[in-house]
């Protein structure tokens, strides 16, 4: 085979896996490639995409954040409780409430994680494990274990609304959630790949000592990254709350694992130093395609877990062997 093609293939294993999966599901079920299903897919991968976006920063730093699922739940709950105060809210008010809740709660949780790690040198796994338990606990404390319900319909616009309404689609075509996620992901991708701060994230992830010696304020980079990770998790959480039009204290349970899986599938190394937000989106797409395709084919959710796990292993093994070859 041509060397160039071989090189491209090995560099883009995740894209190849995604295409193969889509072809397989498309052949097995004729509904898979309908525009409606493909559009649904984009909104179904949105929440995981938001969580994975921030996680990419943290994982590039060589850290980890397993609190994202719980932080998402807490932000969602807070936005729902805040939303209850405005029974006649407009779409604009709803978005302000949702986005502010996500940024404030997510940012605060991320800041605590970051401070613990930079000021007190607590291992990221332990810090975020504690945050995972605390945020989940607080979600139950705030709600007393019950979902927060009775929110205005406009509250659901961000998560469940659709725009562009041709006559054939009275409910709209493009999910607002997809656009919202795309904007955030694009911003986070640019911040990482095109700015000095982004370069610093890679530098600190590759070699902390060298980064420090070259004058990078390492602790600041770490702190900001954890805050960003918290914020994207918070935004993911408010999207769940908006989509379901209520706050579920159990929301996002176990989502950290899917987000980490998506990031790793996207080629971000758990050792740190390399990775990209854009590529993590391919990881999210793979997971969403498997879930969606298997739902369409009526395959038991137990098998979905087995298949997702196997594909992660497969992709990472391919990725590792490719890295070995380049060395």
């Amino acid at each position, binding site marked *: 085979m041509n060397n160039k093609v071989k090189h491209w293939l090995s560099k883009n294993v995740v894209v190849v896996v995604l295409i193969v999966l889509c072809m397989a599901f498309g052949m097995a079920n004729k*509904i898979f490639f*309908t525009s*409606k*299903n493909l559009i*649904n897919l984009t909104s*179904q991968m949105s*929440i995981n995409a938001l969580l994975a976006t921030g996680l990419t920063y943290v994982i590039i730093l060589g850290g980890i954040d397993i609190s994202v699922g719980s932080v998402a739940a807490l932000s969602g709950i807070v936005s729902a409780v805040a939303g209850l105060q405005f029974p006649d809210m407009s779409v604009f008010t709803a978005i302000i409430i949702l986005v502010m809740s996500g940024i404030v709660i997510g940012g605060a949780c991320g800041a605590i994680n970051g401070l*613990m790690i930079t*000021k*007190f*040198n*607590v291992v990221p796994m332990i810090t975020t494990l*504690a945050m995972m*338990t*605390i945020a989940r*606990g607080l979600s*139950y*404390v705030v709600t*007393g*274990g*019950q*979902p927060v*319900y*009775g929110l205005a*319909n406009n509250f*659901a616009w961000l998560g*469940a*609304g*659709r725009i562009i309404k041709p006559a054939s689609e*009275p*409910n709209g075509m493009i999910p607002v959630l997809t656009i919202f996620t795309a904007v955030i992901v694009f911003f986070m991708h640019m911040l990482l790949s095109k700015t000095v701060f982004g370069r610093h994230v890679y530098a600190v992830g590759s070699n902390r000592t060298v980064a420090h010696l070259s004058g990078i304020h390492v602790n600041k980079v770490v702190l900001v990254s954890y805050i960003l990770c918290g914020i994207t998790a918070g935004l993911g959480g408010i999207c*769940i709350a908006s*989509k*379901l*039009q*209520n706050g*579920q*204290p*159990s*929301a*996002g*349970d176990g989502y950290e694992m899917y987000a980490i899986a998506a990031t790793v599938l996207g080629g971000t190394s758990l050792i740190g130093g390399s990775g990209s937000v854009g590529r993590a989106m391919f990881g999210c797409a793979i997971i969403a395609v498997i*879930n*969606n395709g298997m*739902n*369409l084919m*009526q395959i*038991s*959710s*137990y098998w979905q877990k087995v298949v997702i796990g196997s594909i992660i292993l497969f992709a990472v093994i391919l990725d590792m062997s490719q890295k070995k070859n380049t060395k």
Partner: protein
Amino acid sequence: MKRKLMGVLLCIGLAASMLGGCGSKTEEAVTADTSGKEEEQAAAGTEAEAADEETADTPGGETYKVGFIVGSREHVFYNLIEEAIGAECEELGLDYTVLDGQLDANVMSDEIQDLTAQGCDAIALSCNDAAGVKPAIEAAAAEGVAMFTFDCTCDSDKIVCFAGTDNVEGGRLGAQEIIRLCEAGDKVAMIGYPTASSVLDRQTGFEEVINGQSDITYEFFGDYTGDANKAQQLMEDWLVQDPDLAAVFCAGDPAATGALAAIKAAGADTLVIGFDGNPEAKEAILDAEGNGKWWVSEISQNPSEIGLTITAQMYKYLTTGSVDSDYISIAPYIITAENAAE
């Protein structure tokens, strides 16, 4: 050094705040304990009259000690059961402790051991993972503790009595509601959670009735794993395949919440029949102009009755040595717009 000290202090603070979170639980156990001890002292002081009194005293003058393990303190359903247990124990003068099983067989097994070690005369628990807790139940029974189950049971002959919702019947009621609401030729679906044995029972009952119905097609089944967002995705995918899906039976209120969100977003007319009887279900059903257009019916459990029944049966067993029946099913009932406000 300073930094280390700060770290230690912060850790202590964190630990303290976490303990604070569990405060209500500990306090509850303690108050229950002390009230028991006071009674004990009172009973010891007036041993002669003790036998005539209507308290749960053993012939030796001691108060009966009973333990409960609820499936999870994070579910409204179990919170309501726990409330009823507390009220009934106070009423009967039982010295009681309630623990949180966290829906984890391992945690529950440890708690059974702890309660046995504390000298409980009887223990009642919800066996959310029946196979997982069976060894612990049998070990406790071997030490002479009377074992009871509520909500979910396990197939051990050591269990004196079980009280819980007849979930198979609940599933049948769900199917009957679908038959009442649908027309011939309609297609229907169910969102379940087969890992939880009580929800699996609902599925069994539902499928038994719906599969016997020749004019209604049972098109889809999906597992929402207790996650409302997952239920939303399942429903969204089904509506792409069949936009005319007539009704969906959701074997839990979070599933119904998720399904409702997907149906509204897709602009479909699918009807939702929920299960649990939680407040959000009643509110949705009553909202005739809004959510009530889709969420029309609910199969409700009766948690207070479950808590009350199991406590009363434990008391009866400890005082008389027998129970009414070894399997008491508490009938679920249907909630619609007519009776939701009650």
